[in-house]
């Protein structure tokens, strides 16, 4: 078990493509860190540099207190689970799991003990003598994890391990991975493009975009206090609404002027923060769950507005209303009992305590 530090890590592929542009990251012992971001943002590249499968163009990687830049993968004491499992097709499940230990000349009894222990944790005891082609996708995924667990490495690396599974199995395996981590407590770096996976699994989430880290933090912090518009829009589903707005002074306070003319009062404890933007255009960000129907809204700092939904989507436990505004698509979450119909004006309540303002010039949340 070990901590991992990335210091100014750069990856430049032949042809001058900078896939990773100097990232810094400290990962503590036992921590579960998830790298998340859109396709092509450099997550896999970062992970593969940690694994030693990709040369590092610049910076330093430190695993357990030693710089490993020039250490080959086999000597880094890491284990990796691949998206397509990468099981050895000619070996049984048992041999697949034992392979790494055999190459490291572990005694037979110790190999057996570890394989059986991993099989118990993952509940694949009955599959031990099968070949990978006789396993389902979820079972192969478990074997791939078993192969990592038996090695008892310093660090687990996962590259989108669940994206080949169907939706239901993905949720199940997600829980499984979390359980395994709670059992073995190995430092884990997990790559995914699925923000739900990131939120549910991570101690800390690292949001990447275009080869840089946008923000690092615990899931709740990223959710409630995104630092940039990118993070605000990436984390959360359905995504945060972004509405062009203008900040205007009204007496001692401030209001947000929306495109169709509605004014929303800014809570007084935020006035000082937003004062410098008075008279300027900004982007108003609000999550769908903070833009609701008008029942049960006797909280402070609620602003009311009426919008006309275009599409109503009943989800069962809630109903989503999609509204088209000038320059923005807005989504509101309604109680399923509220009567809403497309084209019929709908009174809505915006919880202004959970509002965000984004500086359009910098993309930063104010």
């Amino acid at each position: 078990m070990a901590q991992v530090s990335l210091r100014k890590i750069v990856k430049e592929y032949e042809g001058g493509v900078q896939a990773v542009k100097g990232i810094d990251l400290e990962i503590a012992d036992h921590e579960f860190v998830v790298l998340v971001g859109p396709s092509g943002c450099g997550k896999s590249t970062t992970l593969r540099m940690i694994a030693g499968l990709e040369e590092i163009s610049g910076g330093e990687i430190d695993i357990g207190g030693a710089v490993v830049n020039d250490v080959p993968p086999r000597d880094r004491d890491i284990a990796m689970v691949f998206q397509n499992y990468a099981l050895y097709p000619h070996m049984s499940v048992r041999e697949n799991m034992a392979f790494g230990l055999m190459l490291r000349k572990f005694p037979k009894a110790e190999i057996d003990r570890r394989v059986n222990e991993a099989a118990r944790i993952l509940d694949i005891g009955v599959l031990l003598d099968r070949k990978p082609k006789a396993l389902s996708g979820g079972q192969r995924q478990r074997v791939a994890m078993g192969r990592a667990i038996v090695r008892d490495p310093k660090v687990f690396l996962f590259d989108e391990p669940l994206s080949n599974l169907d939706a239901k199995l993905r949720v199940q395996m997600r829980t499984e991975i979390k359980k395994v981590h709670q059992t073995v407590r190995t430092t884990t770096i997990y790559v995914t493009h699925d923000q739900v996976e990131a939120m549910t699994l991570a101690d800390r989430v690292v949001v990447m975009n275009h080869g840089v880290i946008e923000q690092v933090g615990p899931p709740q912090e990223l959710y409630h206090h995104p630092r940039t518009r990118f993070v605000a829009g990436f984390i959360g589903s359905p995504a945060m609404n972004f509405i062009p707005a203008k900040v205007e002074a009204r007496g001692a306070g401030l209001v947000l002027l929306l495109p169709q003319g509605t004014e929303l009062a800014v809570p007084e404890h935020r006035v000082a923060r937003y004062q410098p933007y008075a008279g300027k255009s900004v982007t108003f960000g609000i999550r769908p769950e903070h833009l609701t129907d008008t029942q049960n809204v006797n909280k402070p700092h609620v602003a009311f507005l009426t919008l006309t939904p275009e599409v109503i989507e009943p989800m069962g436990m809630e109903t989503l209303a999609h509204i088209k505004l000038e320059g923005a698509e807005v989504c509101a979450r309604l109680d399923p009992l509220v009567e809403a119909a497309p084209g019929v004006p709908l009174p809505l309540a915006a919880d202004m305590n959970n509002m965000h303002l984004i500086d359009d010039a910098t993309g930063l949340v104010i």
Partner: protein
Amino acid sequence: MSATARPSEMVPGLGRRVGSLRSERRWALWTAYISLIIAAIVMLAPPLYMLLTSIKTSAEIANLEGNPWLVLAPTWENYAAIIGNPMFRGFFYNSIILTVCVVVITMVISVLAAFALARMKFFGSQVLATGVFLTYLVPDTLLFIPLYQIVGGLGLLNSIWGLVLVYPTLTVPFCTWIMIGYFASIPKELDEAALIDGANWMQMLTKIFIPVALPGIIAATIFAFTVSWAAFVYPTAFITRPDEMPLTIGVVSQLIRGDTFAWGQLMAGALIAALPPVVVYAFLMDYYIAGLTAGATKG
């Protein structure tokens, strides 16, 4: 466009379509069987004729009357003569030594070369891979003259060891090319998993690549075996001493004296010579067909 289903029209239409599918399939089967039967007749007629000739007496072979496809007095005398002939046993032995050596040398070189060319990206590896294949396109009838010089210079004319040296020039390029294809189809993650598991290049080759690419290795082995067992041009050119001859030229050169053809023995010898390839094919085909790569990754 409307996709409204009108049952009254759909059902008969559907029935017709199923019927036409069935008759189409029947047609396909018929055509397949007819072409296969024609092919089988064309392919099997010569060996059958050899077999028939080999169990005839010389007198019966020489008799030009009657149907040559009928055997009136079957006899084993040709086989007995061939097997009892120590010279023929020598040819057989030479062929076996030669072929085993060539297959081993070929497979060692081409597996190692293909692994390097398919997986270790080094300067010029692409050009080299193409080059290997291009050398295969040069016909051996063109190569044997310069090779005669080389083998002669080495003092290996009239020795099967000269052939052991020369045959790999025919087999290695093609076998390497086959193996590059098989190795390239092994997912990259498999090597990476092995690297992380602690394998070095040699272990990756022996413990992952060779077992996973076994069908390819068997295909290449069959090829090398066939080329080496059946080669005719090189031994004809390089070997004149009977005790160093392999089967292919031994049978021909010893059983044809001037214009006297010992047809019965020739055919018996040729059939015995054809036996090892048949046995090898029969044994290896099962492995060859069993797809071993299934289940490496999803899909």
